[in-house]
């Protein structure tokens, strides 16, 4: 049912776009002045631009100040190709979109390959992009040369009454396309990969999301849609200059629009575009144009501080009330004659809807699902312990990892056999977590080889290693903060060895949550569950990737004794389901209880290896480990 609502809205918009020009012609310019069409075009233009920006920057969290560059490529493609090369408008539009997409892919190739890339650096790199294109456009006489280019009025198709109707329809179709892409992404793996990247890119890789390619898909679509929409808008503008195109107007607008409308929802930018365009229009009508940017700037700053989720996140809590209010208010105002001007009436209706959206909601009052009782306890164990087999699940040979002069891991060779729980212990700084990071592929070893199921993994991206059957948890749990507990697990299933749809993944997620005893927390956000539950969530998410080898990096740190017992039960369960485990743990009681074999690391080297009872009495181990940190021996 929910699934269809988005398509219904997009189809209704398509109908409006196709019908409005003829409706306007039928009503006549008395009741439906031409500037209504211009305003409607602007709303749809900004909706296209903001929706395009939102794919990479809203869904994926990579803020871009470079939207003006993609837009500008479209603008100049239309201007140069129709103005100087006599190409048809629709060919120029398509080429404009493709050129912008190529530019976006180049930016992505450079930026997303940088190991040092952080979101802030990406934002600043894209800030420079319009300035570079400005320089190119000014320099090249083939593009502009600094004089500006006149965009000829294209021949209007005979079935349309006026040029304005034609531009409206063309721009409207691009907006429908942009919204359809955005909605489709938000329902499929393409969007969910971005949601995961937005929350925690390293973890996304570790559960099997090919982050690089999904960022490239997103930036390509951002470029394509921005270019298409820019090309159409050039026809509306009529005369383009480098300074008027490659500036910060487009980036300012798309950022404010998307932050206001909501970056997580596919329709957020559309809603934001409606608000911002109408606000600007009304300020112009009141001769307050000089205030427009001041208000937008303050709105941006205030929203980021106080309501970063935007309007759409609040509208969806009571969609029917909001829809009714925003439609009925203007209708009542106009029919009763209180506010005869239609645009003022619509603006007032939207303002009322926004105020209602920010009224406190009953849902926020309390969380009834929360109870003092521990829900996470799992049942008694079922089945027999898995015997240790002969097959080698994972093997490292002489693996080293040096950070500058520090030898964090210095020649470690270990094997994990089928059915084994290998306890990995050692003092702080002995290289345990570095080894986990090497096995999961978070960084490559300085030298040595690592094999998983007989396949060498050095040089593979973490998501490929995840698909080979390696899963991990983090010492400090790193759930995707904006996804529910269920969806955290569902994402891992969607990006498993066999790709799954969202619906199928959500269904399957229930099993994994039940497996660790988190079923009744499925709808909570990770911020609303306790540490123990977050650690269980880590395990459920790791199990959802269907691993052969699970790396548990101090998964029991910071728990109370009751919780530890429960977690130990869960680890046993995982083991009995046929998964080999590397258990990095400080609590020797737990290691002794669970491990079938223990490897002791000290200063990056293997100090001892063997059955728990034997290793724990080894004098070298007692000296290196217990002697120094006896207090950790819980």
């Amino acid at each position, binding site marked *: 049912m929910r699934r269809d609502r988005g398509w219904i809205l997009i189809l209704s918009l398509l109908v409006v776009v196709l019908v409005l020009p003829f409706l306007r012609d039928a009503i006549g310019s008395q009741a439906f002045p031409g500037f209504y069409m211009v305003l409607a075009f602007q709303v749809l233009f900004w909706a296209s631009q903001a929706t395009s920006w939102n794919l990479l920057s809203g869904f994926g969290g990579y*803020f871009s*100040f470079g939207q003006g560059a993609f837009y500008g490529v479209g603008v100049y493609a239309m201007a140069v190709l129709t103005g100087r090369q006599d190409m048809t408008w629709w060919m120029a539009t398509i080429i404009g979109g493709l050129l912008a997409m190529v530019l976006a892919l180049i930016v992505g190739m*450079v930026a997303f*390959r*940088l*190991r*040092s*890339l952080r*979101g*802030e*650096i990406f*934002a*600043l*790199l894209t*800030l*420079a992009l319009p*300035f*570079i294109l*400005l*320089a*190119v456009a*000014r*320099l090249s006489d083939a593009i502009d040369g600094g004089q500006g280019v006149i965009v000829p009025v294209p021949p209007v198709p005979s079935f349309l009454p006026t040029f304005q109707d034609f531009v409206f329809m063309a721009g409207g179709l691009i907006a429908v396309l942009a919204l359809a892409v955005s909605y489709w992404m938000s329902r499929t793996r393409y969007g969910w990969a971005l949601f995961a990247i937005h929350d925690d890119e390293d973890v996304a890789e570790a559960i099997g999301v090919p982050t690089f390619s999904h960022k490239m898909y997103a930036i390509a679509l951002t470029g394509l849609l921005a270019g298409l929409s820019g090309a159409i808008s050039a026809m509306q503008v009529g005369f383009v200059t480098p300074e008027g195109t490659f*500036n*910060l107007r487009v980036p*300012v607008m798309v*950022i*404010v629009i998307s*932050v206001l409308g909501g970056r997580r929802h596919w329709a957020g930018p559309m809603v934001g575009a409606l608000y911002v365009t109408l606000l600007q229009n009304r300020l112009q009508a009141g001769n307050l144009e*000089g*205030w*427009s*940017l*001041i208000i*937008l*700037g*303050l*709105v*941006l*700053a205030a929203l*980021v*501080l106080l309501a*970063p989720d935007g309007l759409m996140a609040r509208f969806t809590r009571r969609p029917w009330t909001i829809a009714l209010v925003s439609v009925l208010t203007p209708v009542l105002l106009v029919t009763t004659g209180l506010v005869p001007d239609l645009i003022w009436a619509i603006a007032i209706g939207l303002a009322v809807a926004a105020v209602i959206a920010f009224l406190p909601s009953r849902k926020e009052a309390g969380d009834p699902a929360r109870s003092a009782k521990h829900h996470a306890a799992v049942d008694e164990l079922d089945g027999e312990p898995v015997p240790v087999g002969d097959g080698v699940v994972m093997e490292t040979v002489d693996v080293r990892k040096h*950070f*500058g*002069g*520090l030898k964090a891991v210095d020649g470690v060779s270990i094997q994990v056999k089928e059915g084994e729980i290998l306890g990995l212990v050692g003092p702080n700084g002995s290289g345990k977590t570095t080894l986990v990071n090497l096995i999961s592929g978070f960084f490559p070893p300085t030298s040595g080889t690592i094999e998983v199921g007989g396949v060498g993994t050095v040089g593979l991206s973490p998501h490929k290693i995840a698909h080979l059957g390696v899963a991990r948890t983090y010492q400090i749990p790193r759930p995707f903060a904006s996804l529910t507990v269920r969806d955290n697990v569902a994402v891992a299933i969607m990006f498993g060895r066999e790709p799954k749809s969202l619906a199928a993944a959500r269904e399957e997620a229930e099993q994994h949550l039940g497996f660790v005893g988190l079923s009744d927390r499925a709808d909570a956000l990770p911020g609303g569950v306790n540490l123990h539950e977050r650690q269980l969530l880590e395990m459920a998410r790791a199990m959802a990737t269907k691993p052969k080898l699970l790396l548990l990096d101090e998964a029991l740190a910071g728990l109370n004794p009751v919780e530890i017992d429960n977690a130990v039960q869960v680890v046993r369960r995982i083991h009995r389901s046929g998964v080999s485990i590397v258990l990095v743990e400080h609590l020797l009681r737990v290691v002794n209880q669970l491990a079938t074999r223990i490897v002791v690391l000290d200063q990056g080297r293997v100090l001892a290896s063997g059955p728990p009872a034997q290793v724990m009495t080894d004098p070298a181990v007692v000296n290196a480990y217990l002697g120094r940190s006896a207090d950790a021996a819980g």
Partner: protein
Amino acid sequence: MEQIQAAVSGALQGSLFALMALGLSLTWGFLRVINLAHFGIILLGAYLTIELAGPTGLGPLGSLLVTVPVLFVAGAVVHLVFDRFEVSELNSLLISYGLLIVIIQVVQNVWSADFQRLPGDINPYATQSVRIGDLIFPLPTVMAALFALVLVVAMKYFLDKTYAGRALQAFGQDREIASAFGIDHRMLGLLLAGASGATAAIAGMLFTLRGTVTPDSALEWVGLVFAIVILGGIGNVAGTLWAGLLVGAVSGLVAIVWTPATSPLVVFTLVVLALIFRPQGLFRRKAAH
């Protein structure tokens, strides 16, 4: 000869941009905020100088008596907001972007979008020049270089030799540990953000000595100044100056060897290369991860 003249002139101009970059780099490196509003504060520095220098009889240099304290407060107030709401680096970028737009529009509403400049009788520096051998440099760029040098040396001394400076460095490296050692980061943060506002006042004044300013000047500085911040190494005071001189010299050379319009291309290519090969900045030994 022509090339040397162009490179040195460019380097001197680059020092003005290094001065603009200084405050930005400091607050980014030590306070973990990326303050785009800094460009708005520089803009205010420029317009206030034009407003004050003539009518008050203070002259451009004398007007610093007013602009430095006023913009010190402005810088501190912006940081007060960041601190109060504990904003992340990325959010500070967005919020200050909003503030920058507001400042530019306010300046435009007050002083119009047209070019503004100091009248010739108030700004005797504009027409004077300094001659060294065969090389001739306009006095305003030499003054900018001197101011940049003095401020960088002073800031370096403050950070390395004073208790407050070292405390700030500790805070930049690890907030929680530094707080645990009793460093009053709030006070120090406000002080540094204020100092960054004060450098903006000086940079704004120096910019008016060279010629005209418009509200959009603020946006024109953004690309070049961030290039300098990144090349110099975030929070690296001396690196910022070196990067400014380097970027200026390269721009100057490119401008006469090819055309002035190609210099952004070259500079930003440099930045991308630097990000690939030396993400920690050009002037810092490779740090261990």
